[in-house]
């Protein structure tokens, strides 16, 4: 056993047993961050804040929600909205945060793509981030089932049907996932478990991995500078704060994080109180009815782009395209063959690739919501083809990029 001396303070007592000073250094005071990063790098902290809001509001909702097909709808819309003090607030915070978290994830992702933060040494940051995205998607989908409204039921029906594999007719797989022939009690209970236990646990683990992946390669910066963190941090510790290219995470960068979080929370609570409707599909305020199909069935906005890659094709081709869209982003560090870790604006054709991908995904998102008729289905088809072609083109255009 180690040598313990009489503690001089509570901190010292803890330090002898938990090495909290070392932890503090690694996590905060000597966790070095490049100085030249803009507010887009604060999206990680914004996501942490949103996740905390989701977790806390979710815990309050969990106290009153009933995972039963007969009572789920009323437990949300009557008990939580009317009888529980501030139940409406927790629900709107949870609903809005669930939607906004995806907006921030997409901004976070496209920031990474724009600045090349997935390249050379930072592959694990990107891969763990994409795993987080996939897990968040599953978390959002399983949560959307719980109010047991019309869209919960029918979106659940449509999405689980995808697992039949088109003309493979793997109906046994669909039934296994649902625990029944149609979404019913078994389906609701298991999605409840996924939403409140298994997936949040996975998310927390992945957040840990995502943070750990940053430790060695460090955060990228907005100019693509190669920073020698050892040299720069010594400069900082020697007192040359202005001359050093790096800063401490706490309180230096954290103060900027908090500033961004402050502005973000103004936006967030504006949505919670004055525009929560955007995050709550009106159709889901009709109780689930297996005998009445809604006029339009569509997923939440953050899934629309991949839904639209599925829709314009025949069943089997659509499923393959959909599967492609789900996994292709994970391969980004390996498909981008360029040696440059610099912002897209300083790269060759990639500059156009980035904006084309962004616009294409917005077009896909819009078409995914609209009814697949006339001009909308044509635009959707073209955009889906464009998405696939862009990914095929990526290794080719980046291979010819010169080292700068």
């Amino acid at each position, binding site marked *: 056993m180690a040598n313990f001396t009489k503690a001089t303070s509570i901190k010292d007592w803890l330090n002898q047993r938990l090495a909290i000073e070392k932890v503090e250094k690694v996590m905060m005071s000597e966790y070095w961050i490049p100085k030249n990063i803009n507010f887009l790098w604060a999206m990680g902290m914004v996501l942490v804040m949103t996740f905390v809001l989701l977790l806390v509001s979710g815990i309050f909702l969990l106290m009153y929600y009933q995972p039963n097909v007969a009572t789920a709808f009323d437990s949300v819309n009557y008990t939580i909205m009317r009888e529980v003090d501030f139940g409406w607030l927790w629900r709107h915070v949870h609903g809005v945060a669930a939607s906004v978290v995806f907006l921030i994830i997409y901004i976070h992702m496209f920031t990474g793509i724009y600045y090349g933060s997935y390249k050379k040494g930072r592959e694990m940051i990107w891969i763990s981030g994409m795993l987080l995205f996939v897990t968040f998607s599953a978390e959002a989908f399983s949560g959307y089932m719980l109010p047991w409204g019309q869209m919960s039921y029918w979106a659940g029906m449509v999405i689980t049907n995808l697992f039949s594999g088109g003309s493979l007719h793997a109906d046994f797989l669909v039934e296994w996932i649902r625990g029944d022939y149609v979404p019913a009690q078994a389906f609701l209970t298991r999605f409840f478990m996924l939403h409140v236990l298994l997936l949040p646990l996975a998310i927390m683990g992945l957040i840990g991995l995502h943070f750990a992946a940053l430790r060695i390669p460090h955060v990228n910066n907005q100019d693509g500078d190669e920073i020698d963190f050892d040299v720069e941090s010594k400069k900082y510790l020697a007192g040359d704060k*202005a001359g050093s290219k790096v800063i401490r995470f706490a309180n230096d960068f954290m103060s900027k994080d908090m500033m961004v979080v402050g502005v973000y929370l*103004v936006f967030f609570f504006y949505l919670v109180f004055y525009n929560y409707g955007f995050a709550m599909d009106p159709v889901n305020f009709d109780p689930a009815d297996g005998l009445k199909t809604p006029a339009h069935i569509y997923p939440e906005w953050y899934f629309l782009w991949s839904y639209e890659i599925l829709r314009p094709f025949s069943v089997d081709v659509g499923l393959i395209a959909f599967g492609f869209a789900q996994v292709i982003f994970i391969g980004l560090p390996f498909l981008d063959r360029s040696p440059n870790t610099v912002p897209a604006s300083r790269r060759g054709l990639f500059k156009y690739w980035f904006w084309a991908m962004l616009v294409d995904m917005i077009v896909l998102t819009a078409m995914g919501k609209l*009814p697949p008729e006339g001009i909308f289905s044509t635009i959707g088809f073209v955009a889906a083809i464009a998405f696939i072609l862009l990914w095929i083109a990526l290794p080719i255009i980046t291979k010819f990029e010169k080292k700068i």
Partner: protein
Amino acid sequence: MKELLILVVVTVFTLVTYYLVEPFAHSQMHKHIESEAFAYADLPAITKTGNVANGKDLVMGAGACAGCHSIEVEGMPASMDATTAAASYGVNPPDLSNAGAVYDAKFLANLIKNPAHALNVEHKFDVNQGQMHPMVAFYGAGGDIDQEVADMVAYLQSIAVKAEDLTPEIAFENACGRCHEVRYENWTQIGTKPTFKHKRDELAFDIQVLDYKDSLKAYMGSLPPDLSMYIRSRGEHYVSTFVENPQNYLPGTAMPRVGVNAHAAEKVVEYLLDAGDTKRHERAEVGRNVMIYIVIFAILALLWKKQVWRDLH
């Protein structure tokens, strides 16, 4: 300043996406229906000035209204309970106490003369095919029928509550409450469900409601939906324009045009807001306070950042 430019780019892309998946997509998925301002423009206007005393005689006459309708304020209770009445007519004929306050005068006059036409359900009740509307048209008491109808309307208006006393409950019960239930307000088609001391009494009440619903279902073709959450699932604009003329939304529907006046329509919406968006006043108040708090937090965070970064530049 570069950061501001980045913020503008992020905001623009976010707003474009929002516009496309919310306002634009909804405008494409649901046709917009304008309010007709509760004018009932297709119905002829009342040309005569009504006489209340004469109207009272006509309404009270068993051949006219009182044969089927109760008028509680005048001490005339219903001759049968709601469930029995629904078994006879398909739906319980409304009590006329407040009809004058809830329904538009022109609509009422036309309803008395030709119910199927005023209610916009001629596609369902076609006399030539022997499908009579359960409410019999008033054929006149021998005099000028337009004058007599104007008298009846004037009488109904005279006994009804004043416009300022019209509560959301009265408006809702008259306009919607005999076909639609509102579970979240404890409202059934036969009235507010009381709290019972004994389970058997509660079951007896529930059986009455179920019997009523059976008659209603046979009469309408399907059971009209529970309206508890309609203010959230459809919105105020939809509810108020739907009440005005259901055919605009669901051509061929068995739901009649309700015929409420603009004031009563507002009250109906208020009732549904109380059912489905109960905490809206609390939300407005808490929202304001939270916004003030958060703005102060953002300002403090900004000042902290400025202080910390003074040494870093």
